[in-house]
């Protein structure tokens, strides 16, 4: 009973998170600072920030850049809670496998800060290790923040177009576009399948039987989504698609776009030289 409810809530929770993060255009259609920029310039500058983050070795500078990303999120009317949730989601994963081991002397030798005794094993935390780990985490969170800023404030079709403008090969961009559609259909199918199971056998599925249903559904899921994807492709062809998605607003860069670009370039150059 409890188990079923747990599964049920995690399925629908996962789906709605996926939907919210991949398909929600809510923030992209808000009238905030980043949304008002020309998508090309926005993409270029935010990527420049990412490059800067990867080059910087001082944690203070990184923290400043992180503050900039938060400020941009604020100016773009992105809910702070949403933004933090979206960005920090990645951190536990990275820190567990990379940053956490690095604080110990085995991986980063140096000045001893503290000693931990776990199961007879003596672990030494070093200053160098700790600051390295902090640097790493800040770097990840800051670069992820800029990428999330870009993806939440730009409509997906526009982003694909920008990629094309930046000379990314069409096959690549098309594949990305298809992935997007694919996930879209996939989510819909999972949801409906789940509902269909529920309507036929009820929520209290006996676990053996439930397993069988899920297993056979995953198999047919792939086939069904493949078929749908093919059909969608036909539907696109039918309306004149020939591999190059076109969007309505032809991008126009205005004065504030150029000013913003200048501003970011100045920061970039100053930080790189310093």
């Amino acid at each position, binding site marked *: 009973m409890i188990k079923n409810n747990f599964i049920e809530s995690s399925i629908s929770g996962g789906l709605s998170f996926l939907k919210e993060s991949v398909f929600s255009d809510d923030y992209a259609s808000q009238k905030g600072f980043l949304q008002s920029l020309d998508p090309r310039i926005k993409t270029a500058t935010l990527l420049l920030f990412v490059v800067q983050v990867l080059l910087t070795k001082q944690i203070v500078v990184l923290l400043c850049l992180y503050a900039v990303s938060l400020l941009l999120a604020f100016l773009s009317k992105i809910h702070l809670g949403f933004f933090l949730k979206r960005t920090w989601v990645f951190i536990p994963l990275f820190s567990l496998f990379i940053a956490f081991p690095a604080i110990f002397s085995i991986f980063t030798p140096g000045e001893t800060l503290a000693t931990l005794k776990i199961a007879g094993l003596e672990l030494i935390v070093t200053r160098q290790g700790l600051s390295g780990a902090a640097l790493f985490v800040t770097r990840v969170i800051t670069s992820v923040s800029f990428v999330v800023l870009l993806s939440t404030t730009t409509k997906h079709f526009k982003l694909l177009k920008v990629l094309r403008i930046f000379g990314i090969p069409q096959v690549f961009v098309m594949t990305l576009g298809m992935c997007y559609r694919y996930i879209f259909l996939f989510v*819909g199918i999972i949801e409906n399948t789940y509902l269909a199971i529920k309507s036929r056998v009820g929520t209290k599925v006996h676990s053996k039987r439930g397993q069988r249903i899920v297993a056979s559904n995953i198999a047919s899921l792939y086939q069904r989504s493949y078929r749908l994807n093919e*059909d969608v492709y036909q*539907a696109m062809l039918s*309306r004149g698609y020939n591999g190059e998605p076109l969007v309505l607003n032809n991008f126009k860069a205005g004065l504030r776009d150029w000013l913003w670009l200048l501003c970011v370039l100045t920061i970039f150059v100053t930080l790189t030289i310093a």
Partner: protein
Amino acid sequence: MDNLIFELKNVFFSYLERFPALSDVNLNIRPGEKLTVVGANGSGKSTLLHMLDGLIFPGRGTIKAFGADLKEGVFNDENFSKNFRRKVGLIFQNPDVQLFCPTAKEDIIFGPLQLGIEKEEIENRLEELTGVLNLKDLLDRPPHQLSVGEKRKVALASTLIIDPDVLILDEPTAGLDPLTTRHIINLLVQSNDSGKTIIISTHDLRLAEEISDIIYVFSPGKRIVKSGKPEEILSDGQLLRDNNLIHSYSHKHKNTTHIHPHLH
């Protein structure tokens, strides 16, 4: 005779070369004609419509559109492709398939954008269709959140906005409420009056009767068993029963000339 939009000769088609879907189909479609295809589930209606839209090609036999052979390669010619897509529009049976953009609005303007129609013109047409189909509140919503009927309306708009000469509709009124159905039928009749060719597949005999100059009946064997004027087809109870278009008990009401057999 030159003046045919579509000309199908002995067309066969199977999916994956295993599942037969069309068998020896012969069909001529003239400009300005209203044509309906009726038949049981799985009798090949959608397959035929996809073929008319140049999405699949005969395994055997030939199909000509506007005098030119439709074959796999012809759509590689950008000019031909653009021209054909502007002239022929298909509304898919499953609206989920047809809607793939983040918002309904983007879905609707997808076609005309790809086909290079002027932006101002697109805006005008969008506005007009929004009024006709009452789409105002749907435009900014993601299609996957819409109800089936709303999706169908958006899908309809996404093809109508291209303003094609030949309009192909795969069960356009399935799942729509009576008023919307009425609107759509009126819209189709109107556009036919202004010279458009209309090709519909449906199970709705009332729609078929009202809208068609000619009805084609597909059999479960995936072939055309009969074609003719609506009066002729709809009065042939045996034919309709054999092809799952009416229940046998609807025969109890001995209708004479004007029948709506499936309504009982």
